[in-house]
Every structure is written in structure tokens, then in C-alpha cells.
């Protein structure tokens, strides 16, 4: 038994040892499997995992460049950058979104539209752990309140942001324009690399035209982030290049004066330095606060701006197109002189109305009355300007071939875009027979010449064009392109000026001087008796201390029926006449030329001329006082 038991024990031990050996072999094989797997991961596929690990931890973040500043001619800041603080949420770290938003609205002002816009932003594509803005522009108190409650609001962050700021608010909105949020359409056009850190781009005015220079170049930083998106350290930085600072010709003092002169009336003022074409003031009323587009504008506010009847977003100064009315008369006179169709001493009788041969239609003078007592009597060109005789120019209109008139007028830039750097300015319309057949399907009638000779009909101009026309007369025929840019730290990429305009050909130097004299008479000829004074004298000429040349204009908005009188009281406000006044001064050595438009304002001399005088005074009186003092010293 003992032997058997021993034998059993021995065979059992042998069995165990063989099993144990097999199991150990198994252990070795499985260990080898693990080792091979590790070899695969760490040697064969090492590079792929290496890349993966780097992509995990290293993020390249674009850094927004600082936008270039915009200064006026005196170094006054017109567009600035400032830091604001936004309230943002990191959804992944917020335990209960609804509850957190409720808690936040108890602490700071968060209204329904904020929440709505937040939810829209939340749906957009974003990186995990990217903060999403709930409210912008936190006040200092709100930031303090949030800081105190920080611990019980996980996932709530206060994020700083540098944004555009327009210290003058709505004053320069139409001149400087504004930056606005980059939308999906913009993204399709823009260089995605250059704009990778930008949320805004210039969309109007100087901000739009000089966008490339103002924007600057994007920078990058390589940061190490953890799995929760938190930046642990910065590995490398390629700093952004700030945008160019610009100075513009605008004179903020003059801009303020011009805006004040227009007051609450709808209209526009463009003032140029005729020597350089520099835009000294560019006002379009009503205006809007461009900062609204930076800090966020609610759909309701935006809707109110776009649907308002007085269209505050519309830039009347460069996009408003109106009939120039009588301000066009000097062009017609100069054209007729150039083509030797009239002489300075030729007199034409003005009885208040005009008829084309073989036609019944009566073309009226502005002084026409039902009882035929109107008219200016015998008028030569000088008198036709300062009295603004329609009948005189009707005659010239019939003498001029339309191609002669259009060819001459286009030298002033009518129907064209003359400006060097004014974004999206309109070209107006200088009609001719070809255009009329194409656009209206009608032939050119002699009556079209008649209408055009007093700046009516299809002719359309912008306030900017009329200002540059005034500057051309001030320069005695030398044409300057209106421009905003005065200087920049370095040459700008946008600065690729078109060739200079040739001077206006045709009028002799004497013609220019006599036209200027006639326009001076518009302002200064006074105390001469009934129908002998300049049309604007009574309104601005009595007490003026410098020589101003000007021309009024009154543009019809609706046609007055044959035989009826224009009765302002009966017309809807928006159907009343537009008041124009163009002027430059000092007449012999002009420093400023301008155009004033008061929409539906009525008479040019009575309504627009005083505005022009106010702007001129604001610009010239301080300068003339200084030069008088210095002249006095010299004596």
C-alpha cells in the first residue's frame, strides 16, 4: 500500500510538474505577446503616436493683431481700441446650464435676447472647453460681483477682449465708418489665415477702404493645453504685427461745427480743402452710433435702424443721389462760353417762363407767378448766376448740343466716381441720349436739354460730387480728387492712386474769374433793390467778413403740374424740395470748398446757405484772425 501510495504520489508529482511547465511556457508566450504589442506601439508605430501625443498637448492659437488707430488732422483720436470684459460659459464645466444662467441673471443683467444669442452661439462648431459668450461689456461692479461669487459658479469665466471704440460716437459714423462682426459671407471672401483671430472687419468708410492696412497681421502662440483645454504654458510666440495708424484730413472741430449747423435736419455736408482735395468734414444726418456694431446690437435695435424712415444707416454724403438744381448753372454757363455759344455781355430777356418752338409746355422760372408778373428782366450771364435765372439757362440749354454739355460737365467728375479713397461712393448720373435709350427706351428730347440746363431731369449728383465741383471752380478748373488719407506711418498697400485728373478745358482764365465773381455776387451783392441782390445775400451776405463764392440750388422732388404753383404747405414733408448750397472761400485764395444739402428743406438760399456760412465761419474765422495778426506784425 505504501509503495502504491508512494507511486501515486510520484506520478501525481510528475503530472503536476508537466502541467506546471506547460503553464510556465504559456506565461512566457503571453508575456512575449505583450512585449510584441509594446514593440508594435513603441517602435513600429511610435511616430504616429508621437504625433498624436503632440497634437493632444500642443495647440496653435492665433493672436489677433492690434487694429491701427485713426487720427484726424490735428492728432485727435477718431477710432481707438479698448479692453472690454465678457461673461462666458464653458459648457463642459457647467453642471447645470439652466440653473447657472438663472444664478447669473440674479447677479448681473442678463436679458432674454442675451440668452437667445448665447444659445445660437452654443450651437456653432467649437473646440471642446471653448468659452462661449453670454454677455458682453461687463461693468466694473458686475465684474466685482462675479468675482466674489466665482467659487459657486463653476464654468463661468470673465474673458477680456480688445474691441474698436469710436470716442465721438455717431459724429464720424459716416466718415470713418465702422468695424462690424465678420459674418459667413465675409468668411468666404477673406483670407482665413489672416483673419483667424479676428472677429471684426471694417465695413464702411475709412475702416473699410483701409481694411488691409488697419487690420495688421495675425500672430500665433503655441501653447501646451491639458485635457480640459486649460493652457498650462506657452511654448512659442510669433507676435502679431499691429495694423497701420492713419491720419485723415478730417478736422474734428469742423466736423462738430458742420454737424451742429445741420442740427436735427436730414441732409449732408461735405467740406474739402480745394488745394489737396482733402475731406475736412463729411456729415450725413441722421447718423448712428458705430459702437453699437462692436458691442452688440439687438435684432430689435438693428431693425429700428434699418426701417426708420429717415434711414440713419444711409450715407447721404457719398451715396445720396439728388438733382443738383441751380447749383449746376455755372457748369452750363461755362460750357456755353467754352463753345462760344454765348458771350459775357449778351443779354436775354427773362419774363418768368420759356417755351420751346412748336411746343405748348411752359418751363418756368423759380420766380414765375400765375399772373405772369415774374421773371428777372434783361439778364446777362453774371446776373443769370447771382439771380439764378432759369430762363437764361433754358436758352443756353437749347443752344448747347447735348454732347457738348455732357462732355464739358463730365470734366468735373459728374457721373463718375472721383474720390481716391472713399469706400463705395456713388457715381451719380450724367444722362445722355445713349443712356436714355438704354435705360428708358426713349429718344432724347430737346426738353431734356432744357431740364438739364437748370440741373433737373435725370441728372443726379452726390453731395461729395458737388463739393468737389465747388473745389474745381475754386481752383479755376484744376480738378482734385477728394481724399481722406492725410498720412500714415508707412506706405499703405491700398495706396495705388489713379492718375491725376486733367484740368477742365475750355473756359479762359478770364471766364473762370468772372464765374467766381458772379458766384461772389450770389453772396455779397446786396442793397441794390428789387430783384437786384444776390439770391443768398439777404440770408448770409449782410455781415460776412470774408469773400465767399456760392451758388444755391433747389431740387424738385416731385414734378409740379403745368399751371400750378409749388405750395410747400400742401406737400408731404418727404416730397418737398431739397435745398442745396455750394460755396468756397476766401474767393480769391480758397481754403475750403463745400456742398450743403438739406433734404426736403426748401429753398437753397434761405435754408442751405446759412448752414454753409456757419461751417465756413467755423473753419475760416480762426484762421483769418491768425493771418491778420501776423500781417499786422509784419507791418
Amino acid at each position, binding site marked *: 500500500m505504501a509503495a502504491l501510495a508512494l507511486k501515486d504520489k510520484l506520478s501525481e508529482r510528475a*503530472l503536476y510538474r508537466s502541467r506546471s511547465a506547460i*503553464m*510556465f511556457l504559456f506565461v512566457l508566450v503571453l*508575456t512575449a505577446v505583450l512585449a510584441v504589442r509594446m514593440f508594435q506601439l*513603441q517602435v513600429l508605430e511610435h511616430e504616429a*503616436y508621437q504625433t498624436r501625443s503632440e497634437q*493632444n498637448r500642443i495647440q496653435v492659437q492665433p493672436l489677433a493683431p492690434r487694429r491701427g488707430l485713426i487720427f484726424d488732422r490735428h492728432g485727435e483720436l477718431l477710432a481707438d481700441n479698448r479692453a472690454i470684459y465678457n461673461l462666458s460659459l464653458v459648457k463642459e464645466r457647467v453642471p447645470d446650464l439652466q440653473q447657472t444662467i438663472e444664478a447669473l441673471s440674479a447677479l448681473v443683467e442678463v436679458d432674454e435676447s442675451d440668452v437667445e444669442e448665447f444659445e445660437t452661439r452654443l450651437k456653432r462648431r467649437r473646440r471642446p472647453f471653448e468659452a462661449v459668450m453670454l454677455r458682453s461689456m461687463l461693468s466694473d461692479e458686475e465684474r466685482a460681483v462675479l468675482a466674489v461669487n466665482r467659487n459657486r459658479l463653476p464654468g463661468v469665466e470673465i474673458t477680456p477682449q480688445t474691441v474698436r471704440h469710436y470716442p465721438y460716437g455717431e459724429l464720424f459714423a459716416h466718415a470713418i465708418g465702422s468695424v462690424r462682426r465678420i459674418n459667413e459671407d465675409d468668411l468666404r471672401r477673406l483670407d482665413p489665415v489672416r483673419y483667424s483671430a479676428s472677429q471684426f472687419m471694417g465695413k464702411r468708410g475709412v475702416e473699410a477702404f483701409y481694411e488691409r492696412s488697419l487690420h495688421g497681421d495675425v500672430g500665433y502662440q503655441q501653447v501646451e493645453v491639458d485635457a*480640459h483645454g486649460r493652457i498650462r504654458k506657452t511654448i512659442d510666440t510669433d507676435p502679431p504685427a499691429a495694423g497701420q495708424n492713419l491720419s485723415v484730413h478730417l478736422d474734428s472741430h469742423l466736423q462738430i461745427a458742420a454737424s451742429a449747423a445741420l442740427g436735427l435736419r436730414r441732409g449732408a455736408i461735405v467740406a474739402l480743402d480745394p488745394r489737396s482735395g482733402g475731406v475736412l468734414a463729411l456729415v450725413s444726418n441722421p447718423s448712428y452710433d458705430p459702437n453699437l456694431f462692436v458691442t452688440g446690437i439687438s435684432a430689435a435695435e438693428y431693425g429700428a435702424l434699418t426701417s426708420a424712415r429717415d434711414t440713419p444707416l444711409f450715407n447721404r454724403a457719398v451715396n445720396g443721389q439728388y438733382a443738383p438744381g441751380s447749383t449746376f448753372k455755372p457748369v452750363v454757363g461755362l460750357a456755353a462760353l467754352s463753345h462760344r455759344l454765348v458771350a459775357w455781355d449778351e443779354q436775354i430777356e427773362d419774363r418768368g417762363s420759356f417755351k420751346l418752338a412748336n411746343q405748348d409746355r411752359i418751363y418756368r422760372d423759380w420766380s414765375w407767378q400765375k399772373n405772369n408778373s415774374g421773371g428777372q428782366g434783361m439778364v446777362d450771364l453774371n446776373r443769370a448766376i447771382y439771380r439764378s435765372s432759369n430762363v437764361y439757362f433754358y436758352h443756353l440749354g437749347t443752344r448747347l448740343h447735348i454732347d457738348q454739355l455732357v462732355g464739358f460737365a463730365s470734366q468735373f467728375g459728374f457721373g463718375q466716381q472721383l474720390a481716391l479713397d472713399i469706400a463705395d461712393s456713388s457715381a451719380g448720373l450724367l444722362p445722355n441720349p445713349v443712356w436714355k435709350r438704354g435705360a428708358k427706351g426713349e429718344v432724347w428730347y430737346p426738353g431734356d436739354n432744357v431740364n438739364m440746363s437748370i440741373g433737373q431731369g435725370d441728372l443726379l449728383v452726390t453731395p461729395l460730387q458737388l463739393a468737389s465741383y465747388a473745389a474745381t471752380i475754386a481752383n479755376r478748373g484744376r480738378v482734385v480728387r477728394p481724399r481722406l488719407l492725410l498720412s500714415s506711418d508707412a506706405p499703405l498697400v491700398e495706396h495705388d492712386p489713379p492718375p491725376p485728373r486733367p484740368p477742365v478745358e475750355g473756359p479762359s482764365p478770364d471766364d473762370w474769374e468772372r464765374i467766381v465773381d458772379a458766384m461772389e455776387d450770389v453772396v455779397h451783392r446786396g442793397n441794390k433793390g428789387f430783384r437786384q441782390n444776390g439770391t443768398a445775400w439777404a440770408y448770409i451776405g449782410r455781415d460776412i467778413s470774408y469773400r465767399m463764392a456760392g451758388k444755391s440750388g433747389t431740387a424738385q422732388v416731385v414734378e409740379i403740374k403745368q399751371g400750378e404753383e409749388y405750395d410747400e404747405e400742401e406737400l408731404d414733408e418727404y416730397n418737398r424740395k431739397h435745398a442745396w448750397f455750394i460755396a468756397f472761400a476766401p474767393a480769391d485764395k480758397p481754403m475750403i470748398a463745400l456742398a450743403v444739402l438739406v433734404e426736403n428743406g426748401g429753398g437753397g438760399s434761405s435754408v442751405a446757405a446759412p448752414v454753409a456760412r456757419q461751417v465756413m465761419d467755423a473753419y475760416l474765422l480762426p484762421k483769418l484772425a491768425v493771418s491778420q495778426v501776423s500781417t499786422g506784425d509784419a507791418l
Partner: protein
Amino acid sequence: MPRAGALPSSAQPRGLIPDPILTALIAVVMAYGLVVLYSAISADPAVFRAQLVRLGLGVLVMLVLANLHPRIYLRWAPLVYLGGTALLVAVLLMGVNVKGSTRWLDLPLLPRFQPSEVMKLAVPMAVAWYLHDRPLPPTLKDVVVCLAIIGVPAGLIVLQPDLGTGILVAAAGALVMMLGGLRWRLIGITGVLLAAAAPVLWQGLQDYQRQRILTLFDPESDPLGAGWNIIQSTTAIGSGGVSGKGLFQGTQSHLEFLPEAQTDFIIAVIGEELGLVGICTLLVLYVMIVGRGLYTAATSPRTFDRLLSGALTLTFFVYVFVNVGMVSGLLPVVGVPLPLISYGGTSALTLLAGFGIVMSVYKHREW
């Protein structure tokens, strides 16, 4: 002249440390683990101290068990097994629910513990106890009884639900049968049956368990969800390369991309910071421990001692394989810590207790 197979009396181990070689190997692995853990927890002194205390406690338990005679384990095996099974029933009835499964028991006067952990030792003990005085290889009847001994506690653990631990407990029992000479034919039939039952087993799995298995085959299908762990762990290991990024230099772990870096996924920290060299060193140490344990078992005169110490040693290796396989993307993610390295007390305590039994067998190999 001593009898065949007996050791010379001069070689008979004496003193508190019966097997200095195994003890030294374990100490080296634990030291290695502490260094890596120190990095994985970003040198948090409180966490590090807690781990030191746990390991110290584990070593103490190991040395105490090492100095008990194996016959004590033989005598107590049925009682430990029955008591453990009763506790498993208690867990199902009154256990503490953590994250959807009931694994913990909160008894008065005792720290909260997992009875399933006890069964990792109790099940192989019970199977070895049942087989030790029966003819080997076991008869079909004995096999059925053994399967029952294994199946009841394993089933209770799966019900918690804790599939991973259930399988590991079952594996420990099965390894005893394997070492006891279970016929290859039966092993083959079992394999075929399991394969045939696979679709049924699949249906029995919880959704998250199925997801884990699917993730194994295509981690990219849900990179931020189910696939996250495995993508980040293979990235950590793979980016380590041959020599690693250097201790404390691992970006995957220190930037928190790697989940569970100090517990179940700590091998990825080793792979990332110490590279292929670091991992292979550890694997060699593990194989040496397994070899030493199997040697102890093979040279032991008593069947119970052999079966138990051999099975415990192989179970240790199963943990190693399952953990490293899971972290490197070979096996589905189951909650198995890396033996002697991962942060956590329970697993270290059980493993060191197991080695205590192995050392006790080594010490008492006299015929």
C-alpha cells in the same frame, strides 16, 4: 543521508523572511511602482504616503501568512470559502451601491471592504482543498464539484455586477484544476462549449460591457466617449518610444489626457515615461516572480500546497496579462489594477496575502 527530494537541513529557511529571493523581487517591483506612482500623482505627498502605508500593511500581512504552516490554510479553507460566499450573499442583500454596482460591504467595526476580493484567495483554496486527497487527474464527478465550488461565488460576483472580478475569481479556481491535471479533452470541450455559447453570453452582457468590447475593435468610433481611454493609453505608450520621455516628463499623464493614470492605467505612464525598456524590465521582473512561485510549488511535497501556491502565482500573472493587455488595447477594458504598482489598497493586500501563502509553502517544504 536525507531522503530523495528533501532539502539539506542547512538550506531549510529560517526566520521571518522565508523566501528572500521572492521577497526581494516583490520589493523591487514595489519600489519601481512607487517611483512611477510618484510621477503619476504629480508628487502629491499625501497620496504617496497613503500608498506607502497600504503597501507596508500588505507586507506585514504577507510576512505573517508566510510564517503560518500550510496545513492551517488547508484546515481553514472550507470555512473561509463558506464565510466568503455568505458575505457575497450579504453584499447582494445589503451592500453599498457605488456607480451602479453593489460591491462593497459596510459592516460595523470593520472598514468598508469588497468580499469578492477575499474570494480571489478563498476559491483556489477551496478547490485545492477539495482535490488534495482525491486521485489526480480528477474524475468527471470531481470536476463537476469543482465547477460548482467555483461557479457559485463567481456567479454571485457577476450579479453585483462585476464581470471582471467574477472572471478572475473563476480563473483562479480553474487554474487549480488545470494544475491538478484536468484532462485536455475536457479543457477542449469546455473551450468549444464557451465558443458556442458566446452569442448567448453576449446577450447577457450589460450595454456598457458590450460597448467596451466593441471599442476594443474600433476605438475611433467614439473617440471622446468610450474610445477615449484606449486611444489615450495607446497614445501614451506609443509616444514613449524605446526609451521614453523621461520620468516626470510624460505629457499624456501630466496633462490629464490619460484617465486613471495612477490606478488601472499606470502601465501607460511607465510606457510613456520609461519607454519599451521600462515596460520590458517590469515584464521580466513579473516573469521572474512567476517563475519563483512556480518553482516553489513544483518543489513542494504536498498536493494542497502545490495546487494552491501554483494557482495563486498563475493568478498573479493573469492580473498582469489582463491589465497590460487592456491598457495596450489587446483586451477590453475591465477594472483590473496592475499588480503591486497601481494605487489602491485592496488589490495589493490580496496579492501580498497570496504571496504570503506561497512563501509559507516554500518555508514548509519538508517531507
